[in-house]
C-alpha cells in the first residue's frame, strides 16, 4: 500500500505524519529540504512581518553636485592622503590665476592625443588631464570660478598656456581637433562662454587697438581742427562754406 501511495504522489510523506508511515523498502525523505508551509502559516507570517520605513535614498534627477552631496550624507569620508595631495595641487592651480579653457573630451585614441598635444605645444599651449571634476567642484565654491560648475560634468580637458600665449588662436586650432569641444574658460581675469570666446577670437590685436585709440584721442585733442584752422585762407573759406551747406541740408 505504501509503495502504491509513493508512486501516486512523491511528496505525500511531507504532509503526513512520518512516524505512522515508516516502512521497509521506502525511499528515505529529504529532511534537509524545507517543508512547504501551510496557508494558515503563511498568512500568519505575513501578518506578523516587521513593517519598517527605510531611510530615503538620494534622488537621481538632481544635478551632479547635489546628488554627490546627498549621497555623501550616507557615507563617511575616509581621509585619503593621496586625494589630499591632489586637492592641494588643484588649489595651487586655481590660486595661480592662470587663464585656462575647458573642453569636453569625446573618446579619442592615444596616438591622436599625442598629435594634438604636439600641435598645441608648438603654439605654446599645454593639455592638462589631471584636474578632475570632483577636485575642481570641491575647490570652486566661494571663489570667482563658481560659475564654471555647469561645465565640470562630463569628461573634460583643460588647456593652459605655458608662455602666456594668446588664446584667440585656439578656436581655429580646435577646429582640427574634432574630439575636443570647446565649452568655456577663464581668460585674462574674465569668465567666458563659448560664444564670448568666439567673439574674443575675432577681436584685433592689442597693438592695433592701441593705435586706434591713440588716433581717436589725437582727434579729440584737436589734431584735425588745428590743421584745418592753420591751413591757407582760401581752403579754410571753402571748407567753412561746405560745412554751412551740409548743416542747412540736414536741417531741411
Amino acid at each position, binding site marked *: 500500500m505504501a509503495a502504491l501511495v509513493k508512486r501516486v504522489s512523491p511528496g505525500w510523506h511531507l504532509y503526513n505524519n512520518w512516524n505512522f508511515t515508516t516502512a*521497509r523498502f521506502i525511499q528515505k525523505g529529504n529532511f*534537509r529540504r524545507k517543508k512547504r508551509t*501551510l496557508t*494558515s*502559516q503563511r*498568512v*500568519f*507570517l505575513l*501578518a*506578523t*512581518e*516587521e*513593517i*519598517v*520605513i527605510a531611510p530615503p535614498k538620494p534622488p537621481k534627477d538632481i544635478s551632479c553636485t547635489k546628488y554627490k552631496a546627498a549621497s555623501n550624507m550616507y557615507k563617511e569620508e575616509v581621509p*585619503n*592622503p*593621496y586625494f589630499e*595631495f*591632489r586637492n592641494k595641487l588643484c588649489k595651487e592651480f586655481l590660486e595661480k590665476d592662470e587663464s585656462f579653457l575647458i573642453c569636453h*573630451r569625446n*573618446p*579619442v*585614441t*592615444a596616438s591622436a*592625443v*599625442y598629435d594634438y598635444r604636439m600641435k598645441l605645444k608648438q603654439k605654446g599651449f599645454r593639455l592638462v*588631464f*589631471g584636474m578632475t571634476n570632483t577636485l575642481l567642484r570641491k575647490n570652486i565654491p566661494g571663489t570667482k570660478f563658481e560659475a564654471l560648475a555647469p561645465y565640470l560634468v562630463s569628461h573634460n580637458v583643460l588647456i593652459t598656456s605655458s608662455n602666456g600665449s594668446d588664446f584667440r588662436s585656439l578656436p581655429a586650432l580646435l577646429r582640427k581637433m574634432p574630439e575636443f569641444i570647446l565649452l568655456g574658460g577663464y581668460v585674462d581675469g574674465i569668465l567666458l562662454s563659448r560664444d564670448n570666446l568666439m567673439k574674443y577670437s575675432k577681436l584685433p590685436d592689442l597693438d592695433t587697438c592701441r593705435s586706434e585709440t591713440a588716433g581717436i584721442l589725437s582727434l579729440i585733442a584737436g589734431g584735425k581742427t588745428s590743421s584745418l584752422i592753420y591751413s591757407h585762407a582760401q581752403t579754410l573759406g571753402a571748407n567753412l562754406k561746405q560745412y554751412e551747406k551740409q548743416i542747412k541740408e540736414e536741417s531741411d
Partner: protein
Amino acid sequence: MMSVTMSTKVYLNFYNTNAAWVIKSLSKPHSYVQSAAYMKIKVAPNYDDIEIPEKKKLRMMDKVPPPVLHTASNLAVQQRSEAKYCRGPEPIHNKLNYGQYGVQALDGGYLSHKHMDAWRLYINSKLTNVMFAEWRIEPPWKPVTKKGTGKRMGKGKSSISHYVTPVKAGRILLEVGGEIEYKQVYKMLRHVAAQCPFDARIISAEILQKEEEQKNWIATNNLNPFSFRYCARNNFLGIKKDLSPYDLKWSGKY
C-alpha cells in the same frame, strides 16, 4: 572537398597565431587616453592590534574520543540519535574570539572526522607565517551506530560505526586571522563552506556588527504591533494547531 578542408585548417591555424591577435587588436577602437598621472597607491591597512598565537596551524582531531567511563572492559557506550543537539540557535559560540574572519553555520547538522581532516589539510597548506587558524568546534564525541548490509530490523541496537560533532545554527566552525584581508580569506574558506553538509557562510567582524545594528534598528522602528511571539502565544487565528512548541520558543525562525 580536400581544398575546402585545407583552407579551413589554414584559416583556423592563422586565427590562433599572434599575428591574428595583433590585427584584431588594431582593428578595435581604443577609447582610452594615455596621460602622465600619479600612481594610485592604496593605503596599507594597520595590523598593529593583531596578536598572533604561538600555535598557528589547525590541530589534528581524534577520530575516536577518549573513554569517559572507566569500566573494566573500557567499551564505548551507544547513544540515542537525539535531534536536540542540532535544533535551535547557538547561544554561546556565535561570536568571533579574535575578531577577524570565520565560517558560520546557518543550519544544524553533524560534522564528521572526514570533514575536519580535509579542512585541516587544506587550510594548513594555505597558511603563511603571518596568518593563523583555530578550531571552534569539539572533536567528534557523539557515537553513530550502523547496521550491517542485509541485516533485518530488530535484534537490538547495532554497534558504533563512527563519531560526529553536532552543530547548531549560528555556530562558528573555524576562525582565521592575521595580516589578511577578506578577499584572501574568501578564497580559502569557500571550500569549507561548500563542503559542509548544511548551509554555511564566511563572516567577518564587520558583517556581524552590521547585522546586529540592522536587527536593533528594525526592532526599534517596527511599526507592526502584531509580533509573532505575542500572536502565537495568544493563539491568534487559531495558529497553535499548526505551530510546533519550538516555533513558540524561537518565533518561527528555527
